[in-house]
């Protein structure tokens, strides 16, 4: 139903992407160079981040002003999507689609490809002194699977019934029984994305294990590489169970099996089913990926922040080994905490207690990492450039996100907070002002290596200051809303449960809480505006940015700055020999305040 004249936001994104690549078709589509693939991943995932963000901008309208036509894009929505957006109003079905796809796009098409694949591809081979990834063609295949998976996800908006509506978690039997083709597309898209991640993970791990330059021992790896290494393992081993679950749900949907459909379930949309399946099984397999996924989202950002903090405090990272071991512990323990998402399913007390315990344990290495990064600041002569500002903001933002997770990790408090806006605020603090700030820091930091030019410092700082303020204005009030009992996934923002609409009952949502929706939405739209300087800055600086004066403009120690700028195919002029650890800043007795790893 989409056609050339449609200008829906998701659509426009794809076209923009396409046009840009057409010019360099050969070079950019079928390249096996890890840096080009990294940039491909980067651009594509930034576009998907934009699409996912746009969906939320429209949803925020519905939450703040339920039942009113969406301004600006309302008529367009109706034209492109049809009845679900009649008169430009977001219907419940459309809201559900947007919600499910916001989560899916942001996580699987936005952050993971940007954090793991884009930065990983560009930076990891450079940082370990390798000429390329271990399997360049598999690397290309990985990007292509990701791209096709993304297209499938976007196409699902326009199939009969619209995109998937059962949340990014796609719980069965709900996901199976909603009569939309979109869920099938979602599952096929997921299988493609998982395949892409698996190929990527195999490639990264093999690269880090095999292609380290001479002298680059494990304990001389920059922490970013360690973070990617652990992330690679998480993706490698946590994704396959979800792939299995996806295949089974696809069977439920297409071949009418009953893997996740219990005996006695009677829904007209399902027709005759044999029953005998277990809805809880889906949740187990989903969260077996879902929780390690959280660390997939956060570890690369921690790695980036660590690089930038070391570089801009001009002193060694405090507790490098603690960072490394903590990230390894996180990797292991993250596989045995998943069911803390499932306290409300009635798994039983014993197992809930087990998962509650492991959840508390995993907070320890996270705190160690955060503490090491904080302590690294102590006594440093800090350079407050844009990447450093974002990196510094990451610390308290991730701290808030992490600490507010503790009440959700406890059985008792989770019963009250489960599925409320508190949960939304918690994980967005981890991922949005947390990970995304880390990624922004990374973009500003490595941009000169990719292009040979700096991004504008002034507009970078404007971007930072406004983003920082509005991020907090968006998510901080949600904690209060959640604690007041406002549930997530409601198209009217909880108006149905407002005290005014529920006379004679207690425990309704107060007017203040309902009105806060509008404040949050305003802040969200301002946050969108705050990204404009970034987008303009990003594209203008390619041609107009200040030129770098050397290959090592930040005066950093790690290997990626020892290459020509931008690095040519094959990266290094001659194989680098590594003589020292990654963070030898301000070594006493040296003439410079940094000693590159290659310096004897």
């Amino acid at each position, binding site marked *: 139903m989409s056609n050339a004249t449609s200008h829906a936001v998701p659509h426009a994104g794809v076209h923009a992407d396409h046009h840009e690549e057409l010019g360099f078709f050969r070079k950019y589509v079928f390249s096996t160079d890890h840096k080009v693939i990294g940039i491909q991943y980067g651009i594509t995932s930034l576009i998907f981040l934009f699409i996912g963000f746009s969906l939320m901008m429209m949803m925020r309208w519905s939450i703040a002003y339920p039942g009113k036509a969406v301004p600006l894009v309302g008529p367009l929505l109706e034209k492109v999507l049809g009845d679900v957006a009649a008169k430009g109003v977001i219907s419940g079905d459309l809201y559900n689609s947007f919600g499910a796809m916001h989560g899916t796009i942001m996580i699987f098409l936005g952050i993971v490809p940007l954090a793991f694949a884009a930065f990983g591809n560009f930076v990891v081979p450079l940082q370990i002194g390798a000429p390329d990834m271990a399997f360049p063609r598999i690397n290309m295949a990985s990007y292509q699977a990701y791209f096709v998976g993304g297209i499938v996800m976007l196409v699902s908006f326009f199939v009969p019934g619209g995109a998937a509506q059962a949340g990014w978690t796609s719980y069965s039997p709900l996901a199976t029984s909603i009569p939309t083709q979109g869920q099938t597309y979602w599952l096929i898209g997921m299988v493609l994305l998982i395949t892409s991640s698996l190929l990527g993970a195999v490639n990264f791990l093999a690269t880090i*294990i095999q292609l380290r330059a001479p002298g680059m021992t494990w304990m001389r790896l920059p922490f970013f590489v360690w973070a990617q290494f652990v992330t690679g*393992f998480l993706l490698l*081993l*946590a994704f396959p*169970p979800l792939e299995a679950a996806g295949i089974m749900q696809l069977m439920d949907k297409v071949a009418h099996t009953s893997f996740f459909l*219990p*005996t*006695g379930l009677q829904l007209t949309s399902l027709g005759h089913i044999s029953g*005998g*399946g*277990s*809805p*809880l*099984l889906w949740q*187990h*397999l989903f969260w*077996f990926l879902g929780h390690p996924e959280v660390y997939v989202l956060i570890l690369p950002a921690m790695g980036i922040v660590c690089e930038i903090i070391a570089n801009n405090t001009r002193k060694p990272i405090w507790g490098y080994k603690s960072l490394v071991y903590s990230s390894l512990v996180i990797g*292991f323990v993250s*596989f*045995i905490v998943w*069911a803390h998402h*499932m306290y409300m*399913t*009635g*798994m*039983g007390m*014993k*197992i809930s207690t*087990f998962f509650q315990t492991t959840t508390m344990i995993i907070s320890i290495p996270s705190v160690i990492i955060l503490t090491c990064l904080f302590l690294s600041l102590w006594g440093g002569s800090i350079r407050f450039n844009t990447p450093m500002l974002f990196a510094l903001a990451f610390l308290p933002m991730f701290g808030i996100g992490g600490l507010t997770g503790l009440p959700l990790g406890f059985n008792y408090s989770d019963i009250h907070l489960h599925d409320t806006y508190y949960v939304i605020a918690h994980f967005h603090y981890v991922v949005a002002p947390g990970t995304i700030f880390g990624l922004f820091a990374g973009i500003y930091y490595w941009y000169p290596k990719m292009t040979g030019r700096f991004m504008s410092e002034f507009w970078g700082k404007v971007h930072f200051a406004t983003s920082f303020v509005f991020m907090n204005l968006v998510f901080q009030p949600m904690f209060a809303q959640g604690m007041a009992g406002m549930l997530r996934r409601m198209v009217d923002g909880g108006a149905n449960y407002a005290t005014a609409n529920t006379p004679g009952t207690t425990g309704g949502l107060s007017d203040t809480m309902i009105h806060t929706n509008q404040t949050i939405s305003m802040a969200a739209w301002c946050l969108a505006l705050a990204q404009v300087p970034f987008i303009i800055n990003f594209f203008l600086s390619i041609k107009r940015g200040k030129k770098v004066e050397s290959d090592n403009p930040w005066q950093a120690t790690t290997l990626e700055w020892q290459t020509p700028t931008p690095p040519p195919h094959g990266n290094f002029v001659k194989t680098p020999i590594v003589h020292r650890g990654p963070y030898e800043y301000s070594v006493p007795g040296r003439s410079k305040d940094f000693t590159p790893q290659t310096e004897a």
Partner: protein
Amino acid sequence: MSDNHNAHDIQKHVKKYLFVFYALIVGTVVTVAVSKVHFGSVTMNIAIALFIACIKGFLVAGYFMHLISEKKMIYGILIATVFFFASLMYLTLWSLEPTSLIHMK
């Protein structure tokens, strides 16, 4: 395992491979034969069949896939995998103890 072989080494290995091959065939026949006998309970039958399957699996992984004499790095990867596989299987089953089986009914 793959490096510095000489022809003599390989020939010795080939003998081993053939032995493993015969063992696997015998194992298959035994599995089928054993499945026709009752060992008191269904659980016992399952245990015996899986035990034989594990031996066969060990032979394939150990000799055909050279795991018996593989490098440390590979062991590391596989140990981590086994740990995660075990936790997935065990914890999932634990959460579905009879008390929780209302989900299935």
